[in-house]
């Protein structure tokens, strides 16, 4: 009997203070501790509170995934960590720009498949297209696979962004910071002059 725990892909969302070096902290944590990153996206999501959201797709056994979440929670500028994969249903999307080159039948075929996949041509010359496509990673993979024999030139992908289904948001969801679901007030610091 094989009792080796299975490594599964998890999509993890991390809400961070948008301060200098925060991405380096997160990436350094993954490389330094030997966790793998399958995709990573980051952008500011709240300009007033200066918060960014990082979405990471990683792979690991349940014990490793728990470590990853706890290690992320340990980083000082991290507000909250959410394991979207294990905390109920979520929506995940990726965007890709796909450049395909060809003429004649190959060109027509690529356009036909793009139509089926609901990819949009956002640029075209007489012998090339750039398709824009949004969808799950698997859907993008499938489309790109089909384009390969038809003259695939290059691909640019955003990596996965994801969000939990339903009405509740990040902060009022159950999982706040990994290091405690209770948030005692920080020790008061009085500064006398």
């Amino acid at each position, binding site marked *: 009997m094989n009792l080796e725990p299975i490594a599964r892909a998890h999509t993890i969302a991390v809400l961070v203070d948008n301060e*200098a070096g925060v991405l380096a902290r997160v990436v350094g944590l993954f490389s330094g501790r030997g966790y793998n990153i399958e995709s990573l996206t980051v952008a500011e999501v709240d300009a007033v509170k200066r918060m960014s959201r990082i979405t990471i797709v990683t792979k690991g056994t349940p014990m490793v995934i728990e470590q990853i979440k706890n290690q992320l929670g340990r980083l000082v500028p991290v507000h909250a960590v959410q394991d979207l994969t294990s905390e109920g249903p979520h929506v995940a999307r990726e965007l890709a720009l796909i450049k395909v080159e060809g003429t004649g039948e190959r060109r027509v075929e690529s356009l036909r498949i793009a139509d089926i996949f609901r990819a949009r041509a956002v640029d075209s010359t007489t012998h090339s297209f750039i398709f824009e496509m949004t969808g799950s990673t698997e859907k993008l993979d499938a489309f790109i696979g089909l384009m390969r024999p038809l003259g695939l030139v290059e691909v640019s992908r955003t990596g996965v962004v994801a969000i939990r289904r339903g009405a509740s948001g990040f902060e009022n969801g159950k999982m706040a910071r990994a290091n405690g679901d209770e948030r005692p007030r920080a020790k008061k610091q009085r*500064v*006398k002059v």
Partner: protein
Amino acid sequence: MSEYQELTGAEIVIKALVDEGVDIVFGYPGGAVLPIYDAIFAQNSLRHILVRQEAGAAHAAEGYARSTGKVGVLLVTSGPGATNVVTGLTDAMMDSIPIVCLTGQVATHLIGNDAFQEADTVGITRPCTKHNYLVRDANDVGRVIHEAFYVARSGRPGPVVVDLPKDVQLSIGRYAAATEVAHRTYRPRVKGDSTKIEAAVAMIAAAKRPLFYTGGGVINAGRRASELLTELVRLTGYPITNTLMGLGAYPGSDPQFLGMVGMHGLYESNLAMANCDLMIAVGSRFDDRVTGKLTAFSKGSKKIHIDIDPSSINKNVPVDIGIVGDVGSVLDDILKVWKKKRYKPDAKALKAWWKQIEQWRGRDCLRYRKTADVIKPQYAIERLYHHIKGRDAYITTEVGQHQMWAAQFLRFEEPNRWMTSGGLGTMGYGLPAAMGVQVAHPDALVIDVAGEASILMNIQELSTIIQYHLPVKVFILNNHYMGMVRQWQELLHGGRYAETYMDALPDFVKLAEAFGAVGLRASRPEELDDVIQQMITTPHPVVADIVVDPDENCFPMIPSGAAHYEMLLGPEDAKPEISAEGKMLV
């Protein structure tokens, strides 16, 4: 309230440190911190201790912090000043020691230009600090320094770097009065989950072969945590073992204390770990020096783990109940539940368990062969203990066999009395750490138990020790070898002692004298007591060169890759075959 003062960045640094209650800064000047040194010159609240190499400042701050429970502070210049503290920062990170390190940086407009003495300090120190900051505006200096102290001491303590560009030190900024900093993101959990605590107490009461396995986290949690631990252990009557980092959290001479656990821990401790039915881990992190081969680690036990850092729980060893919280707070709650529900331990089972433990104790695993003509290192430590017992003493160590013998043979009755580099195992830690301890406790007896190889790594700090009249004692177990490495070569590499013989050693007595310290030497057992006595009673810095048996090895030992119950108890134990897997583990 928006009362504030306008000061230079450098003045704000000093003001913020004083407001944090800092009285001592260990440091070394240079171009990029000159404005801060100028501000130090102009005041009398902070005392600056000038070390001889920045590494010394880092370990001194660690020694200061560990022996007082306060945050240690150091100040160094940019570039080489900052890179010289990387080892000390990593050491503090591994051992959860709260220190704040202020580094100078080139002016902001020069950052990234390969300017003179520029180093990417925040980049270099990111993985070896709990957090670090580059301050780009004098208005932020005060807030950042207060935040740095908060981060260093809260939750799982650790080192924090604040990088201060020279223009920021020179320009005018606001230092706000009476601010209340509730950190935006970092709020570690202190109180344990009450449901889990109740379940844990029930489990503790029902145990037949229980064992407390406690570590450095108890010491991090402060004196009160040690008192609560002692109360709980005595109330239950259960046996307790400590990690290397946890020594002193429970009185070392108490009969319920089994001694240190782990690779060079006591036989009875390791066998109790292997055979217990309930392990209560308190502020200890299941380090590989303790668990040995993970798949064979205490398979029959249920485990409770109390730790303030969720990432310590279920990291190496899965546990049944993991309680995130401060040791002090959680132990307090455990005691309350235990008393309220009037739990009683299973007296009959406990009696049988202690009977078994006494049998393991009967092996007398620290036994060694005494000799009349050479000093055995264990004997030297035993005699040292005899002379310092009951005194107001603090011990630091370097890294190697001498460190392990000190851990085995010295017993600590209180926390904060034992300073050693556990996680990183930094040779050269002990002397500067002792210096930091002595600065904090000027009248105490502070002894660095050293090896002749390790002591040479930061020997320059003897000069600092002389300058500030710090009566630190250095007790060198001089075996002419990097003994710990030689022991491994014996075990793993057929006794081929590649580069572990310490040739061309200095004459430590003359070396001490050259620095202005007192040098002593003992080469024969009958000289030992006199030398120790003299060392202790001399009111000056002393280096005692204790010439010991060069061939002695440190036992018990769990060979690498072996299970924690497969211990070698002495040289007479057949050398085991070390698996290829074992050879890969250091």
